[in-house]
């Protein structure tokens, strides 16, 4: 099972507590994990990625295993620790205040 840690606002929107656990088929990538996440929680469509381009929203970041993976290509495999469910993929609202 893949674990995804959502920021508080998206947990509220999806009506979940704690990490989300997802079954993901095939290679474990940003795209496949987010596809599974949005399929299970349709209300999250458009909140992490643009509806049309599927590009990451500007103030959303992806962290895992103490790395910032935000700028990785969406089909790059995620770290093994995420693929095995040992570590979560963090979806993070970027610091954007002042």
């Amino acid at each position, binding site marked *: 099972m893949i674990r995804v840690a959502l*920021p508080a*606002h*998206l947990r509220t929107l999806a009506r979940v507590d704690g990490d989300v656990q997802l079954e993901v088929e095939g290679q474990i990538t940003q795209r496949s994990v987010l596809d599974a996440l949005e399929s299970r929680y349709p*209300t999250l469509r458009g909140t*992490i990625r643009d*509806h049309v381009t599927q590009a990451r929203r500007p103030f959303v970041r992806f962290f895992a295993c103490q790395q910032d993976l935000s700028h990785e290509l969406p089909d790059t495999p995620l770290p093994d620790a995420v693929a095995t469910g040992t570590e979560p993929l963090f979806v993070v609202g970027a610091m954007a205040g002042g």
Partner: protein
Amino acid sequence: MSAIRLLVGTRKGAFVLTADGKRENWKVSGPHFAGWEIYHLKGSPVDPNWLYASQSSGWFGQQIQRSQDGGENWEPVGNGFVYDGVPGTHQWYDGTQHPWEFKRVWHLEPSLSDPDTIYAGAEDAALFRTTDGGKTWHELSGLRSAKGNLWQPGAGGMCLHTIVLDPTNPERIFVAISAAGAFRTDDAGKTWQPINQGLKSPYELPDPDAEVGHCVHRIAMHPSRPGVLFMQKHWDVMRSDNAGESWNEVSGDLPSDFGFPIDVHAHEPETIYVVPIKSDSEHFPPEGKLRVYRSRMGGNEWEALTRGLPQRDCYVNVLRDAMAVDSLDLCGIYFGTTGGQVYASADAGDTWNPVVRDLPAVLSVEVQTLP
């Protein structure tokens, strides 16, 4: 006894304020959607317990929420605001063409006849419609054919913020867009025409009489006279007696004709309200005095309404969607400020009282008059 429900959108959530017909004691519910910007929420005139809210965030984008029980419970509905076809381009700050990019919904206007049909005004400027209660949204893209390539964003963004439905003609809709102007359709949204003749913008446009490009802030209509429109432009208060075909200035003796909201008394179609703001660079009331101005003759001659409003050291703003009137016999009027106050008058503006004083900055105020 009748009841009043105020729907207040703020920078950090939505609030629902309720009172009985006396409008003296208010109950505050909220924040709903705490931490999110609520640009607007509005109830269906067909079923007033059906409410729709525009919830947005710079981080996580746009949501539309719906309540079917007067705001007690909410559910997210659809948020797929996708421009029709190839989005095309509009004028950008540097003179180049820039593609349309969806940012947020500024205004929701429920249909007058169907609680599942709602219009949504978006930034970048476009009009969307749902006919399934918000699950799916479709752009009425003919609007952008009305010289959309010449529109360009103002300081507040290129937003479609005003949607006025003609209660006598379902085919006719008026919209207004910042730094683009006012537009009208007479075929339910298929085709649109600019309706800006008579607007003058000598300080904002190289051609002060341009067909598009005027910064319209708000349009109001009394439902009994859908051909008469009142407009608060960036500068100037305007009036049209022919459904926007032409406009005349009615700023008259206002201390400043800059401002954002404008509204019409529920029972007196010639009684209108504005909140003068000092200037486009000083978004606060002249002389630090918060004054609503009322004209009982459709403009030109105005009286200041001050009783109960701060008359010194007041430097808040009142945004375009933050004023509303109820339809009780003694018409109530309400407005919210960027300082977080919501003021209510139960006597058509003669006297005012704060309903709440310390909300987040108020973006919008709507009122429902309930049986």
